[in-house]
């Protein structure tokens, strides 16, 4: 009994009160800052170092949807033209917004890449139930998505939850490159969701195939019939990246810090 009280006291309140304003500390590798002006002539070291073809030259650009945030391009660059910042706001509604270049600053990207449509706010703004499907995911993104609802991140304060059945869900959250062996089950799950529904692609694998894009055992034809509404990069995607992007998408992130509608719990 006393041990239990001791444990409860020690546990304290580990919840992050302002989870939408929270930042991931360095040396986390998040939003990359590109400075093409520093590129030596004809240098392609970053392009060669990238394991997934996310970095391109002419002009220098980086596809956040293919990036595994390994930092190999940063290490390979002799001139410091690529630097990973800890910026975790990586989500984007449009696939092409994920390709960033020297002209895009972290704050501009974070403020504009996720578009919140009126109908989405109306339908799901106060409650969004999600069915997660891992289709070849390595358990990295899956663990981070589970962490979204732990005692620290407590995503359900926003009315956003993962549910067991696609029949109870408003949206499908996909992780993994879509292995050929999971393609039929993924399709079944998607078609079991009632309309209107959204699709959220989480992590480099789901967005682009990532490291597995060239594998003959991957089948990405799912995306031919299922448009992706929200892309959230990462390898794996950090819980704060996920929560912030979804809240931006639902129009939940604009209120005052202590506004009950943002779900922020006042700290004692």
């Amino acid at each position, binding site marked *: 009994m006393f*041990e*239990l009280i*001791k*444990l*409860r006291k*020690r*546990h304290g309140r*580990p919840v992050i009160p302002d989870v939408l304003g929270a930042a991931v*500390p*360095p*040396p*986390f*590798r998040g939003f990359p800052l590109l400075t093409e002006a520093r590129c030596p002539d004809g240098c392609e070291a970053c392009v060669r*170092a990238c*394991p*997934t073809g996310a970095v391109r030259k002419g002009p220098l650009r980086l596809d956040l949807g293919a990036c*595994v*945030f*390994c*930092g*190999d391009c940063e*290490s390979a660059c002799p001139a410091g033209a690529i630097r*990973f910042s800890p910026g975790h706001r990586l989500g984007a509604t449009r696939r092409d917004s994920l390709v960033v270049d020297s002209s895009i600053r972290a704050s501009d990207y974070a403020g504009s890449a996720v578009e919140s449509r009126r109908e989405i706010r109306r339908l799901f703004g106060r409650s969004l139930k999600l069915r*997660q*499907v*891992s289709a*070849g*995911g390595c*358990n*990295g*993104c*899956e*663990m981070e*998505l*589970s*962490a979204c609802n*732990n*005692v*620290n991140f407590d995503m359900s304060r926003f009315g956003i939850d*993962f549910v*067991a*059945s696609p029949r109870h869900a408003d949206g499908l959250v996909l992780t993994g*490159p879509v*292995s*050929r*062996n*999971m393609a*039929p*089950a993924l399709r079944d*799950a998607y078609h079991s969701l009632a309309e209107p529904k959204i699709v959220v692609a989480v992590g480099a694998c789901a967005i682009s195939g990532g*490291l*597995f894009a*060239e*594998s*003959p*055992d*991957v089948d990405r034809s799912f995306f031919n019939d299922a448009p992706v509404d929200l892309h959230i990069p990462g*390898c*794996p995607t*950090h819980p704060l990246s996920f929560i912030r992007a979804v809240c931006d998408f639902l129009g939940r992130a604009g209120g005052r810090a202590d506004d009950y509608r943002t779900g922020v719990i006042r700290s004692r």
Partner: protein
Amino acid sequence: MTIGFEFKNGQAAAEADIPRLSPDEFRAGLIRGAAAGLRPVLFFGAPETPGIRLYAVAADDRNSNLFALSTTFREGDSYPAITPEVPAFHLFEREFYEDFGVKPEGHPWLKPVRRGIAGAASAGPAYLFFRMDGDEVHEVGVGPIHAGVIEPGHFRFSCTGEEVHHLEIQLGFQHRGVENLFLLRRDHAGFRLRLAESIAGDSVIGHAGAYAGAMEALGRSPAERRALAIRVIAQELERFGVHLGDLAALAGDVAYLTGNAAFSALRTKIINASLALCGSRFGRGLVAVGGVRCDISPELRDVLRAAVADAEDGARLAADVLFGSSSVLARFEKAGIVYPETARSLGLVGPAARASGLAVDVRSDHPYGGYAYFPVHKMTLASGDVFSRAYIRSVEIGQSARIIREQLDALPEGAIVRPVAAPSADAFVVSMTEGWRGEIAHAAITDGEGRLRRYKIKDPSFHNWFGLALAVRKNGISDFPVCNKSFNLSYCGFDL
């Protein structure tokens, strides 16, 4: 006792040193070895022109030796299965048959390993489930998509009432072609390392460490002591973090929410310590071939020390509360028992094996990297139930914390990374690490130009999934979740 070429973990050898035996001698050698206590580590094919080469690696844990032997087949050949004599070969033989078409005659359970999934385009026969007859028997099918946020796999229970008589686990849904990708993009060293980190996203250091160990051995360029010590710290942080998460989930599965909340908050502290070390909560980007990419500054050392001390202290208190609760013990004790004999005959590894009294631990049996410089005590529990698999995690948390502290206190000086020479030609290496789930083994074979010709990966889950299937027999089906979590096996590590 010798049954083939004798070598050590992480020691490269000429491929030609591995004896090429007749299939009969090969089989007899493995059976003789198993009778003398050798444990199967690897068993895999490689295409040759013409034909198929089958390699096997067995471990003599007492003397820290490995033995490699091989034989050759032609496509469509068959041989008498080893499994009826040594059940630990059961999945290995299925895998070899699926990949190369050489049939183990008399194999009692010759089913697909990663293929045969209904609705998915793949060659080979469909997966046929075992079926129990009887008016009272009913089946419960679960998956591939499970209720929680976890990886997919299909479980089929044959029950009478609440009691499970048989559980069949069909895997393969996560198959991404990892081994093939190691060869497809063998010219991109960075790609291979990132791929190794993604074999199982919860065992990043375990698999990346095994891969780096293999490449360093093939290039005969060992990493420096400081790098090896940092790898040890990262590996123990990984074990610490996952074990805390597993205890949280086990508490959650028996609806003990205090334990769930306490352990998951502690887990966050440890994986955030990993982020402070290398920028990733799961250790991505830390391991480099030739060492590590991130050094530990005096300031970082203090941060890691404080995080480990805090989480260890918290975990001890939370474990006292969890394991002192009679309602928790009522669910953990005598649930999902795997007896030592069963564990040995299946060839279980890792904490699941140690919880059934089997003293196996690569860090101690086949020391590698930084673990070659200090003793790791093998800790076992006897009861083999969910309690045992939960409690061993609590014990191992204390062990990991102590190892991290000791490594931080005496961090050797030196470079954290050094160049690694190109792999030698026609060489062979087995690199094993003790991931938090148990024995990870990677085998690499190079061609005449030193390029990878075959890359074989074995996740500990490959040994342990069948242990879960047997553990739930004669248990109530409602105990399945807690049994499953007590193993916490990898789907993608198995499916590759």
